[in-house]
């Protein structure tokens, strides 16, 4: 500088400032990169690496012929990772508009998972449509934290059919998460909540895999760093015959009731139908609270599995139990007769026979074939309530049968001790008269009555009803097979069995039999009709009686025992026996061979 108009010390100051600047920058960088370097590195890793669960496909359920009853299919599910949310309202409101879901429902889901790490993706909606997937994908940039995962979803190809048998899966609830048995589960997991799905949850579930992925700032997956394959759940092979069940489902369509059929020699359940039913596919997709409420409060109670949870007076089918006991104990014999004038005066009232004109003088055979009430009033009184209770106990009617489904209810056959204990009153014989024809304080489920039919068919032995035949691992190895388990056993007199069997055969095959209309030419079916009077009124209107039919076939060497119940169906002979006929006919169609599924595996 020639003229020296700027003092030299100004440039000196500038140099100082540059040095100070360098010092400040380096001190700060030292702090960030060296002192806090590892922490910052960890934060940047945490930013970009997400551990994602890879849902294991649930085990498949097959019928005895290998038909698929429940499998999995791919579905699109929407998740939110709380850690990736920038603006809570932007993400939640934006998503709620795109997928037609209430804002509060989304917020609730996030709140439910608040106990989990913020990097844990929370499932918001399952099985969204392709349309919704497209909308969300197009707006991902505005929805930080939202991601779409393709995951296996439970699929029931038969829809409403098999609903009570297979059950359904749905998202684990907050209360269930707190239970010990679900300690390895996380929010958003699907669990079996009903039927076999619930009973065999631990086999069906499989082991979820894990995927470490690199995500960008809005949570989009950029690449996979690490992958642990999920292990599919075990498959169940059922004893069910899907073809026959479908026919029975159709026969019972529009009615309320239940049908169960099993092999009396093993307890293998071949058909199990309850109506009305629900569509299990809807649960797998995730029901809204309103939809769930609507199903739960339905007056027809579609959630009730009538076969194992519906308790009804057994009506005349119960006469079989009395006949067995009375003959076995020698209270009556083949030749014992009672006169039926159409009514039975007892105490200060007259108990009527269903046939107004009466049956005249009847023995045990005709009494079963024509279902004479007066005959059994007499038998009942001769036996007394406690011996009726005793035979109920022996056959297993006072407890649950132990079928491999959750929620089975026990049946009930009263005793004098029960009344004494619960009401402090003595048992009146008038009550015995009612119980003798399956009315009054006796309540049984269809599955218990099928055991009564089995008891006769098998001449004094029943087996625990078993739906699942065997469990197979994903590699095809047999994990578990279910051998027949004896449920009840009684040494019955040959003569007694013969008399009762002849009677039941006559019900279907003799012209005077109550189920003669349902006889089958090719197979001899034995059975017993029942009509349980319903005392309750609906808006002043008398509801129809419950129609029962229990049966087994072939009469000579039974391989199937059946119970049909039609709620408010009227007479057992007209409402229920024809369904048993359809079932038996189809089961014994020449081409349909019933193979015991587990025999193949034994060899």
């Amino acid at each position, binding site marked *: *500088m*020639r*003229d020296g*108009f*700027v*003092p030299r010390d*100004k*440039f000196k100051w*500038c*140099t100082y*400032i*540059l040095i100070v*600047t*360098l010092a*400040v*920058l*380096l001190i*700060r*960088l*030292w702090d*960030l*990169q*060296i002192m*806090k*370097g*590892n*922490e*910052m*590195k960890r*934060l*940047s890793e945490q*930013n*970009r690496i997400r551990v994602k669960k890879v849902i294991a496909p649930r085990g498949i359920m097959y019928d005895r012929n290998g038909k698929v009853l429940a499998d999995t299919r791919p579905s699109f599910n929407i998740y939110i990772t709380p850690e990736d*949310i*920038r*603006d809570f309202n932007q993400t939640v409101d934006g998503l709620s508009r795109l997928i037609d879901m209430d804002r509060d429902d989304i917020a609730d889901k996030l709140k439910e998972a608040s106990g989990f790490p913020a990097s844990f993706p929370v499932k918001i909606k399952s099985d969204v449509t392709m349309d919704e997937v497209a909308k969300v994908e197009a707006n991902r940039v505005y929805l930080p934290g939202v991601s779409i995962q393709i995951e296996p979803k439970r699929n029931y190809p038969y829809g409403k059919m098999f609903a009570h048998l297979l059950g359904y899966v749905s998202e684990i609830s907050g209360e269930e998460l707190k239970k010990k048995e679900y300690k390895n589960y996380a929010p958003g997991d699907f669990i079996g909540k009903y039927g076999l799905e619930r009973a065999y949850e631990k086999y069906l579930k499989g082991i979820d895999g894990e995927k470490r992925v*690199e*995500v*960008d*700032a*809005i949570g989009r997956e*950029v*690449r996979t760093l690490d992958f642990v394959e999920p292990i599919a759940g075990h498959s169940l092979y059922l004893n069910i015959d899907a073809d026959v069940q479908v026919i029975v489902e159709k026969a019972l369509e529009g009615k309320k009731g239940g049908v169960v059929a099993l092999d009396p020699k093993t307890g293998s359940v071949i058909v199990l139908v309850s109506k009305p039913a629900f569509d299990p596919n809807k649960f797998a997709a995730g029901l809204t609270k309103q939809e769930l409420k609507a199903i739960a409060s339905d007056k027809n109670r579609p959630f009730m599995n009538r076969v194992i949870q519906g308790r009804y007076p057994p009506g005349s089918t119960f006469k079989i139990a009395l006949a067995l006991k009375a003959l076995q104990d020698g209270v009556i014999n083949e030749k014992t007769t009672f006169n039926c004038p159409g009514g039975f005066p007892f105490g200060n009232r007259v108990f009527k026979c269903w046939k107004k004109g009466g049956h005249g003088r009847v023995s045990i055979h005709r009494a079963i074939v024509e279902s004479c009430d007066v005959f059994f009033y007499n038998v009942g009184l001769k036996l007394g309530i406690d011996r009726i209770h005793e035979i109920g106990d022996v056959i297993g009617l006072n407890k649950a049968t132990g079928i491999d489904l959750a929620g089975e209810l026990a049946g009930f056959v009263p005793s004098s001790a029960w009344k004494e204990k619960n009401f402090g009153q003595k048992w009146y014989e008038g009550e015995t008269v009612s119980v003798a024809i399956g009315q009054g304080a006796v309540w049984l489920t269809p599955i218990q009555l099928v055991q009564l039919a089995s008891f006769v068919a098998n001449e004094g032995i029943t087996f625990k009803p078993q739906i699942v035949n065997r469990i197979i691992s994903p590699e095809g190895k047999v994990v578990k097979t279910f051998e027949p388990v004896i449920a009840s056993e009684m040494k019955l007199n040959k003569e007694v069995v013969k008399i009762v069997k002849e009677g039941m055969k006559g019900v279907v095959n003799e012209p005077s039999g109550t189920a003669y209309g349902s006889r089958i030419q090719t197979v001899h079916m034995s059975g017993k009709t029942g009509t349980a009077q319903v005392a309750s009124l609906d808006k002043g209107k008398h509801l129809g009686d419950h129609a029962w039919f229990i049966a087994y076939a072939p009469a000579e060497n039974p391989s199937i025992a059946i119970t049909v119940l039609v709620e408010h169906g009227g007479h057992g002979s007209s409402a229920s026996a024809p369904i048993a006929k359809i079932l038996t006919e189809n089961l014994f169609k020449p081409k349909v061979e019933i193979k015991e599924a587990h025999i193949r595996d034994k060899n």
Partner: protein
Amino acid sequence: MIRIDKRRMYHLDWYLIINGLLLFGIGILNLVSATSSFYTGSYTFITKQLIAFFLGAFLVILIINYDYRVIAAQSKWFYLGVLLLIVLVLLIGGITGGAKRWISIFGISFQPSEFMKPVLVLFLAHKLHERKRDNMPLGITDILIPLAVCIFPTILIVKQPDLGTAVIILLVCLSVLWFVGLKRSTYVVLGSIALAAPFVFWKYLMKPYQKMRILSFINIDADPSGFGYHAKQAMIAVGSGKFFGKGYMEGTQHKLQFIPEHHTDFIFTVFGEEWGFFGSLVLFIFFLSFIHRCLKVAQNAHDELGSIIAFGVAAIIYFQFAINVLMAIHLVPVVGIPLPLMSYGGSSLVSILASIGLLLNISTRRYMF
């Protein structure tokens, strides 16, 4: 038209040129990494940046060709021209991110506010130089017009809003005034105005989002979704580089888009993440030696006018460098200021190159009489 004078070629400040080219080269390499993400593999950004560089280089040659005294004499027209463009921006400008900053002429869009920086330095130098005939410190009356000349465009730029450029302009103006030399009383008056200025800004000029930035600077977790989030992610990026960095093209923070504007205002985070403490140290030394060289030009200038202009340019580069890096490492609030020669952006690059052109102009004429 443009004569290349051999003697002037010889007197060109090659140290400045090589240091500048080095910074630009580092900037381009860094930009390649910053703009290649997992989603786009194109070199559009790089191409545009190189076009701007050659445009700027041409401007440098053009500027060197005319004596800076001639250019300074015409600075009033440059000033009025850029001012007019800034007014036009406010009236018809294009909007990016809620701010009107750029204008499109003949299909080329640019930010006039970037050019106000060198033009204002020129105009200010010219005005102050006129006032300071007798080599006496300037009084209040002497600097009234120069101050008005600075404050008027500053207000317009704040209105765009482009707080970063406005801050740079004010700081550069004040430094130039300090450099020229003021009376003690003038310092007192200016000092009190400077103390009051933040309140005026806060109350009347700043938009809510700008206030939010200041607040989120004070408490980084107060706004985890917006500016606080960005500031935090920028710090994580730089910090996770540790001593030697993650390696070129290996930065995850910017590649996975955790840092917004990582190719413009937050470009340093890309460098810091990939090159670590060591690389940053080298980069800082390059920058500071460059600025030091700018000051040398001011010191060795032929006359006072040249000295003031060169000092002004040094101030522009220094403040942009310092504030930009301090912002990336969370020592000042987030403001939109590009890193000279390294941030992506044509207007910024051309403006900086033109400023360097002025410096070269002054340095080549240091021995003239």
